């Protein structure tokens, strides 16, 4: 029974990951982005859980719960809490959304081409889905490059991290528990620190537009 739906479930989870990444490029509002990021965390957790069920490993299931807690709930909560305190939550990205979305589509095609060259012999379901992880990494980079506000750059960073995690889970059948634990906590720490910094900077300079921070070194 599970074998027949397994490819569908993997497809569904990776599809949700891709969709949320694309929507993240589309939306400007920081709060909406955070909500989408939370959805993405849930999708990632579901993906891990599906892989765990297929392989029957309790360790992977635990990892999925961990992913759910950290990426689906804790990180978005921290971000949302910090964002609500600010006044400016809209982003005016350097790339207009139309061009951004088309770039997303092209990046996805690119990652498909690259992955099909790299994994040409592998025909398993998870290898088929791996390009989505790669696409997420690229989309994360795109967000990092095109966003001005520090807050939304952080979101780009998190998408990048989610992408790496997706690739890791799909190609190796799961990262060891400790490693995942370590990475997740690291990410949490980094985000919290960055966010606190961003908050301080906002209090000090009024905004966190990265372009304007260049003046700092003068």
């Amino acid at each position, binding site marked *: 029974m599970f074998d027949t739906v397994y490819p*569908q479930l993997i*497809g569904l989870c990776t*599809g949700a990951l*891709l969709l949320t990444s694309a929507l993240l490029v589309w939306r400007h509002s920081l709060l909406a982005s955070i909500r989408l990021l939370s959805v993405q965390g849930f999708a990632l957790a579901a993906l891990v859980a599906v892989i765990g069920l297929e392989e029957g490993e309790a360790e992977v299931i635990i990892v999925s719960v961990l992913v759910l807690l950290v990426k689906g709930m804790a990180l978005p909560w921290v971000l949302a809490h910090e964002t609500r305190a600010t006044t400016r939550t809209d982003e005016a990205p350097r790339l207009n959304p139309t061009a951004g*979305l*088309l770039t997303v589509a092209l990046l*996805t095609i690119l990652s*498909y081409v690259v992955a099909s060259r790299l994994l040409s012999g592998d025909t398993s379901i998870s290898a*088929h889905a791996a390009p989505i992880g790669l696409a997420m990494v690229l989309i994360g980079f795109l967000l990092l490059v095109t966003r001005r506000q520090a807050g939304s750059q952080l979101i780009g960073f998190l998408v990048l991290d989610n992408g790496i995690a997706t690739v890791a889970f799909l190609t190796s059948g799961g990262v060891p528990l400790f490693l995942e634990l370590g990475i997740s906590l690291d990410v949490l720490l980094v985000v919290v620190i960055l966010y606190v910094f961003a908050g301080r900077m906002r209090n000090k300079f009024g905004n966190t537009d990265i372009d304007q921070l260049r003046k700092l070194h003068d």
Partner: protein
Amino acid sequence: MIPAIAVALLQLVLFVLLSPLLIGVIRQVRARLEGRAGAGVWQPWRDVRKLVAKDPVRAADSSWMLAAGPVTLLVSSLLLCVLLPLVGTLPLPLVPSDLFVIVSIMLIGVVALALVGLDAGTAFGGMGSSRHMTVAALVEPTLLLAVYALSIPAGTSTLSLIVETRLQNPAVIISPVSLLAMVALAIAIMAETSRLPIDNPSTHLELTMLHEAMVLEASGRDLAWLELGSWLKLAALLGLLGNLILPWGVLTEFTVAGVLVGLAAVTAKILLLGALLSVGEVFLAKVRLFRVPELLAGSFALALLAVTASYLVA
């Protein structure tokens, strides 16, 4: 062949009867959500009957297009009702429900409407026509790509076969390809039928109009054909969407019971989707005109992602 023609004829009759009811339901649901009593679900029927019974007025400078355009729109919408797999998927001989044929038949109606808008020779008509065509031009890639993505599991661009494939293999419906494509398709259909958030069908401000601005000069039966044509298009496209999301109940082999089930199923799907559309519209505001392309580009990117995803997670 005979059953297929019979089903096509039934679809035609059903949709002519059903489409004003669909608009009635949409308006009624909206009225109830706004705390009003509403005019009843049969009101669009009364409107059409009355419009046909009036003496149309046309300006001296307008041409035959003002009379021919509405009829063209109506016929193109009626053809959609004949060709789309709505009640059943029995293929008509020689005219399969080919995606590209159907889209271009629909575009004939779009063009007829745009020309009616221009024929009026007024600023508002031209404005509506221009916006309408811009939206149509940007929607077409989404529409074709979305159905291209849906056609991949079926291996054909014939819509009736796509619906049949989904019926036989429901797992296809929740696949990411299908989900992305359905979202894109839904946005494209909203744009194509001038609903919120692209256009506000109940606006009175000329400067915010898309669809309404083109029909400002039409009256009497001309207006009736325009209205009926637009309603039929909405009903047919919602029916297609319904059959793609929930293919159950569609007639695949001709039996009398099957026909009845098919009729009931498509009626239920369309009215349900109409009610959902109406509820959704209460929560939406019209998008600024110059952000509409953004929305359409978004849906286009989703459709492109859907096609790409079909290679990623086949």
